[in-house]
C-alpha cells in the first residue's frame, strides 16, 4: 500500500481522464480550439481549487457541447458517447480525491478496488442506455 503523501497520482489521473474526454469530443467534431482552452482551464481549476464546484461546471460544459451538436448515428457515434459518459463518470468519482484535505484518500489496492466498482457499473449502465436509446 502506498501512502498518498502528495496529490499527484489522483490529480494526474483526473487530468488524464479530462484530456480523454476532450479528445472524444474533438473526434466527434464538437470541440473547437477555444472550447479546448475552456476545458483545460476548467480542469486546472478543478485540480487546484474546489474540485466539486469546478468539476460540476466541467461536466455540464461537456454535456452542453454534446447537446449543441447534431446527434451521431451508427455504432462509432454511440461508442464515443459511451466513452465520454464513462470519462465524465470518472471525473465525478475522482473529484473528491482531489480535495487536498486531511482525509484525502489513499491509493491502496482495497481503496482502488472499491472505487473501481462504481466506475465499471457506470460504464455498463451507459452501454445499456446506449443500446436502449439506439433502438437495438
Amino acid at each position, binding site marked *: *500500500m*502506498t*501512502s*498518498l*503523501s502528495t496529490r499527484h497520482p489522483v490529480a494526474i489521473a483526473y487530468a488524464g481522464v479530462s484530456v480523454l474526454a476532450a479528445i472524444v469530443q474533438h473526434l466527434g467534431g464538437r470541440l473547437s480550439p477555444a472550447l479546448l482552452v475552456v476545458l483545460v482551464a476548467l480542469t486546472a481549476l478543478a485540480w487546484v481549487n474546489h474540485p*466539486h*464546484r469546478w*468539476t*460540476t461546471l466541467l*461536466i*455540464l460544459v*461537456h*454535456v*452542453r457541447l*454534446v*447537446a449543441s451538436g447534431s*446527434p*451521431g448515428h451508427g455504432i462509432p*457515434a*454511440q461508442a464515443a*458517447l*459511451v466513452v*465520454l*459518459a*464513462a470519462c*465524465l*463518470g470518472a471525473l*465525478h*468519482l475522482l*473529484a*473528491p480525491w482531489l480535495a487536498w*484535505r*486531511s*482525509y*484525502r*484518500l*489513499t491509493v*491502496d*489496492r*482495497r*481503496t482502488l478496488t*472499491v*472505487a473501481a*466498482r*462504481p466506475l465499471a*457499473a*457506470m*460504464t455498463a*449502465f*451507459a452501454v*445499456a*442506455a*446506449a443500446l436502449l*436509446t439506439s433502438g437495438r
Partner: protein
Amino acid sequence: MTSPAPSQPWHATPAWWRALAVAVSGFALAVVLRRPDLIVLTSPFALAVAMDIRSPRTRPPSVSTEVEPAMLREGESVRVTHHHRHDIDGLLTLSVHPLDPIGHAGHVGHADHVGHADHAGHADHAGHADRSVEGQNDAHPPRATLFTGTCRTTMTPPWGSHLASPRASHCLTPWGGWSMQLPSPDPTRYLVLPVRAGSPPIPEPRPFGREPGPDAGLREGEGLDFQGLRSHQPGEAPRRVNWPATLRTGRMVVTQTYADTVPAYLLILDAHADPRLGDLVRQVGQFAAAAIRRGGAVALAVHGSGDLAPIPLGSGERHLTRLEMTLARVSPREAPTNDYQHGRTRRLALLPGTIVLVLSPLVDPRLTALLTHLQRQHMRVSVLDTSDPAVGPVDAGVQVVRRRTLQVAGIRVSRYDGAAALALASSHPRWSLR
C-alpha cells in the same frame, strides 16, 4: 483507546448533489431537445444518485491506538500503532500526525503502514515536528500520514509529553454520495525523559579543568570524612584534637570533617518559553543525575507550571526517574501559572545550607520573593540568568533591577552561558566550608 461513535455520522456530499444536478439537467435537455443520446451521457450520474439515495446504515468504525513503551528516554524509539477494522463497505482513510508534542524540537522517524492482509506493504515516512521550541522546523508544516487498516510508526522523539492519536478519520461510500467525519479519539499520552548521558554537547556538571574535590553541597560538621586541620577553638571537644599535628606544630590543632549529611540541592527551573528550554531541561536532568550518583539529595521545582508539583529532597534511582518525569512534563509557558507553586516550594522540607540553583530569565517578579525567602531560610541561592542579552532596552532595564534586587538580598546572580555555568554556580567559593 477507542473513538466514540457519533449519533448521526453520515451526511450527503457535494458529489451526490453534483450527480443529481447533472442527471436532472441532462434529462431535461434530452426532453427539450428531443435528443435521447443525451440520456446515455447522463445515465452514469442517474445511477450514482440512485445508488446513494439512502443514507448508509453502517456504524462508524472503531479506531484504537497503542503506544509501546509508554515511557522512554530521549534517543530511544517508540512504536505507535493505529488500527481500525475494515467493517465498512466504503472508502476509509485515517489521518495520523506521527508526533504531537506539547512543544519540543523535531525528530526523525519512519512509519510502516500495514494494510489489509491481501495488500500488505510499507512506506517510509520522514518525521517532522509540530511546534518547535527551537524554532527550527516552523518552515515545514506537519504532514499527515494516511493509512487504511493498521499504521505502525516508529519514532525517536525529543523529551517531553507527547500525544499519539489519529487526528481525523474519514469514510466515504463507494459512490461518493455520503461521507462521515469521525471525531478524533482521545489521545494516548507517552512520556520521553531527557537524555541522561552520552550526549557530547552536555558536559558533566563539574566543569572541564576543575580538579575533583569535595562537593559544594557538603557542609562542615560531625562526620568521618576528613576535610582539613585548623586551630583549636575554646570549647571544642578534646576528641577532635589531632595530637600528632599538635605535637608537630606546638599548638592545639583539631581535625575538621564534613558533616555526615548528604549534599542537598534544590533546582528551580523557570518554564518560561525560551529557545534554550530544551537544553536547560537536559542539563538540569544531567546535574540531578550526577548529584544523586555522588550520594546527594535533589529537590526540583518548576517555576511557571502550576500543574507540576515540586519534588521534595530525595536520592536514589527511583527519585531520579521521578525528577526526570517531572522535567519531561515541562512545557514552555509565555505566562506563569504558578499561583500555588510558590507556597508549595516554600513548604518543601529542605536541609539548612541547601544549595538552590535557579535557571530563570527573571521575567516573573514573584520568583524574586521566593528566592529572597529561601535565602533568609539559610539556603545558598544562586541564580543563572537565562534571559536573552539582546532584549530591548526597557526589558533589559527591568531585568537589571531584578538582578540588583537579588544581589542586595545576598543572592549570587550570574549569566547562564552554557552547560558549565550550572556546575560553576553550584561550587561557588563562598560556599566552601564555613
